[in-house]
């Protein structure tokens, strides 16, 4: 059998993707890009679920990952509708300008 990939490489890749998602979530100001960063974080978590599923030789991690995908789809539909509504009411996509809950 050829040399395999260490399991920790997959987990570290998942951590890197999650961290990039956090960075986008924190640093970006465009509401759509912030939303895409959340999807990036969910993808990173999915990768670690599937890696653990491989390690334990069980299908449960795949089921969790499947549910994460479904929830991400639901979240994208509702979130983008909210973005449309915010843009309709305020005509801005900058999250610094949408701060009426601050006061």
């Amino acid at each position, binding site marked *: 059998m*050829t*040399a*395999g*990939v*260490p*399991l*920790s*490489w*997959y987990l*570290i*890749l998942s*951590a890197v*993707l*999650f*961290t*990039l*998602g*956090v*960075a*986008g979530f*924190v*640093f*970006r*100001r*465009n509401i*759509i*890009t912030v939303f895409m*960063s959340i*999807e*990036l974080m969910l*993808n990173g978590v*999915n*990768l670690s679920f*599937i*890696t653990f*599923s*491989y390690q334990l*030789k*069980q*299908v449960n991690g*795949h*089921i969790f*990952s*499947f*549910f994460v*995908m479904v*929830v*991400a*789809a*639901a979240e*994208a*539909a*509702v979130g*983008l*509708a*909210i973005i*449309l*509504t915010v843009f309709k009411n305020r005509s801005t*996509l900058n999250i*610094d300008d949408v701060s009426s809950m601050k006061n």
Partner: protein
Amino acid sequence: MDVILFLIFAVVAVVCGINVVVQSHPISSAISLIGVMASLAVLYLLLGAEFLAAAQVIVYAGAIMVLFVFVIMLLNAGAETRRGRSFMAQLLGVPLLIAFLGLMAFFVQRLFPGAGDVHFGAFRGGTALAVGRALFTQFLLPFEVVSVLILIAILGAVVLARKELE
């Protein structure tokens, strides 16, 4: 072969992920995110998750990203305007994130020292048959709950995005 494929697609995923964060135009971020998702689908295949690799391409790279691109087009989103950030964010943001990543990598290395290697084809429990069997026997209740959830999400999206009735 496994290592080469993993390295190629991991590098593509990380480069596209960095591109998602640094691009100032949302459409460039969206295209990079599609790159991340496609390379992750290949990694899922390497881990033996055939069904989820297909679902990743169809649901994420297909449906969700089309939704994103449509919204970007619809709102005519332009490049992000750079503004002055707070001093603390500039000073601490990147070091804190790198520390977070280092901590996670450290724990991964410490917690799974003898975890063994990933060989393509060693785990065959990720077929549509196996996933479907688990989904409709052991996880039937969560499956039904999530179907109600997605129905509510669709209704919510329609209610939120419709034009106000006069």
